[in-house]
């Protein structure tokens, strides 16, 4: 299980800190696909980076922590911010944005697989034995084992993305963080890769945290999702519920604005623009664009509260209450 506890992070700049994550609280359970949606610059990638513990200057964690707990091969483990690095590949992996360019183009795929498996993990296995396991695994993913001999530049974008996914899931980690895994790909290839991710998830019963700006992808793939706006969660809930009955005005306007094939009715976007994180408005950050905004919204930051069972929203104007 992945627990995010009062996490705040900011980017240091010359004059002022850019508060990118504001006091986030979130629990991501085992065996689910959790989606994170939001506009660019709302902190999606920063959140993943802090979860994966790659906080390098100018990014800095101001308060709070991330905890990774669970059980593997009968042994319980507990890692938290500061030592999550030790369990990379084994319990948590990260598929970064533009994953297609993370493979070294002039090193054969086979070498890159071997390099990603830590020595301690390999035990007494020889390289060949490991490669045989890799081959078997690739076949499961419907990839030809021949690609192990290929260089990344010889493969198409979709193939490279599948190699990355194979790399990230080979050690069957409990948590896979995927940052926009299909953004640069065509719709047909995108569908294939998302289907692959879903199949792997069902097979290994692990957790996938999927970041995407495409709401359609979230609808198709994720079980639960969080909508981020300007550094904090506006709403968290089951994906189906969020699309059917959005609570937060931002989610509602976003869902209503999505064009759908087969629907020609007039759609409107959300007026205005997201606030600058350097100088955010004092109250609710969505208030300047929100049609329901009142003085309360402009002065006080709403807290993320449970409005229904398993549904959280950060808005002053929700009438619903937990039963």
């Amino acid at each position, binding site marked *: 299980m992945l627990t995010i506890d009062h996490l705040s992070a900011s980017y240091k700049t010359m004059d002022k800190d850019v508060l990118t994550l504001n006091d986030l609280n979130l629990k991501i359970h085992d065996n689910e696909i959790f989606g994170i949606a939001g506009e660019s610059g709302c902190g999606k990638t920063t959140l993943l980076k802090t979860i994966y513990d790659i906080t390098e200057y100018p990014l800095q964690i101001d308060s709070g922590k991330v905890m990774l707990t669970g059980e593997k091969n009968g042994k319980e483990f507990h890692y938290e911010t500061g030592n999550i690095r030790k369990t990379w590949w084994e319990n948590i992996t990260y598929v970064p944005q533009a994953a297609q360019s993370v493979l070294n183009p002039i090193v054969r795929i086979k070498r890159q697989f071997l390099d990603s498996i830590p020595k301690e993990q390999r035990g007494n296995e020889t390289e060949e034995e490991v490669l045989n396991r890799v081959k078997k695994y690739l076949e499961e993913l419907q990839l030809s084992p021949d690609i192990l001999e290929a260089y990344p530049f010889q493969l198409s974008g979709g193939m490279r993305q599948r190699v990355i996914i194979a790399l990230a899931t080979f050690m069957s980690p409990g948590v896979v963080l995927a940052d926009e895994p299909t953004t640069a790909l065509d*719709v047909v290839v995108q569908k294939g890769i998302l289907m692959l991710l879903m199949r792997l998830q069902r097979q290994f019963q692990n957790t996938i945290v999927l970041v995407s700006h495409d709401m359609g992808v979230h609808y*198709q793939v994720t079980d639960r999702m969080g909508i981020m706006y300007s550094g904090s969660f506006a709403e968290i809930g089951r994906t189906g519920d969020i699309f059917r009955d959005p609570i937060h005005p*931002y989610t509602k306007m976003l869902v209503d604005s999505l*064009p759908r094939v087969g629907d020609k009715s007039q759609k409107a976007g959300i007026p205005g623009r997201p606030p600058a994180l350097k100088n955010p408005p004092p109250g609710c950050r969505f208030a300047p664009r929100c049609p329901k905004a009142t003085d309360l919204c402009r002065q006080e930051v709403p807290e993320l509260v449970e409005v229904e069972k398993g549904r959280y929203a950060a808005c002053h104007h929700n009438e619903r209450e937990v039963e």
Partner: protein
Amino acid sequence: MSEKLLELKNVSKVFRIGGMLSRKKLVAVDDVSLDIDAEEPVILSLVGESGCGKTTLCKMILRMYQADRGEIRLDGKSYSDKKEYDPRQFRLDVQPIFQNPYETFSMRKSVDSYLFNTAIRLGICKDRQKAEALIDETLHSVGMSLSVIRGKYPAQFSGGELQRISIARALITRPKLIIADEPVAAIDASMKMNIVNLFKELKDQYHVSFIYVTHDLSTAYYVSDFIATIYRGCLIEYGEASQIMDHPAHPYTRLLLDAVPRIGDKWEEELTLPGEEEKEYSLMGCRFSPRCPYVTEECRKKRPDMKKGCGRQVLCWHPLASFDHSSSE
């Protein structure tokens, strides 16, 4: 026959790949014929996967590439003849909008300088004062104004705002045709629809036709009057947007449509991606045949002909929808 605004006749573009002595060729655009009527302004969407030749086709329409074969005419004037169609006049008639607004504008120049340069250098306005009035008016139609943007740099705008300015810049010359190459791909979801709606409004307001290039079928469906599907350089299907989207005739269009991550109905059947890229350029028959689920012997051996009827065209031996007889429900 009615007047045509844009006419593409058997247009092809071939690139040579490799070094100077290489004989390898890549047919980026293959024998495309397409036209846009002059009477009513329309939005024509070009859809297809990356590398299918959408951008090459656009660049030819923008006169940035010369067609290797075939002919392009705008308003009846041929592109290939510089005397018949003065490049200066051409720039007034056709204007582009690019994908990433932050790359459209140099980050070191103020954005209004682009607007003034377009207005003055292309000879629409004689002096700065007249240009100011024209620019302000144009900016108002995209929901901005000159007083807001004066002296500002691209980094001071959001992607959506900057794309609006980019659209206003294209409108200054009062063009007949605007080529928008993936104009909303880099825009956030919440502002995407504002831009797309703008196209619809401007179409009638300025009487300008758009060629909207995209891989996003849901916005294509929303905005366009006509849709052309392109696969490996070939135009494989063309027709009215609702016709094509509701009853796709080409298996590839259907595949594309099924792959759109829709909201409302979940994907069911598994989709396996081809393991290796086939050498599709050396294919004898239909270019889609290696991936087509309905492939027959005929498809593999012979190139299909363009079947036409009811205002739509399809390049397939076995179209999925019957359109020869009237099916205009």
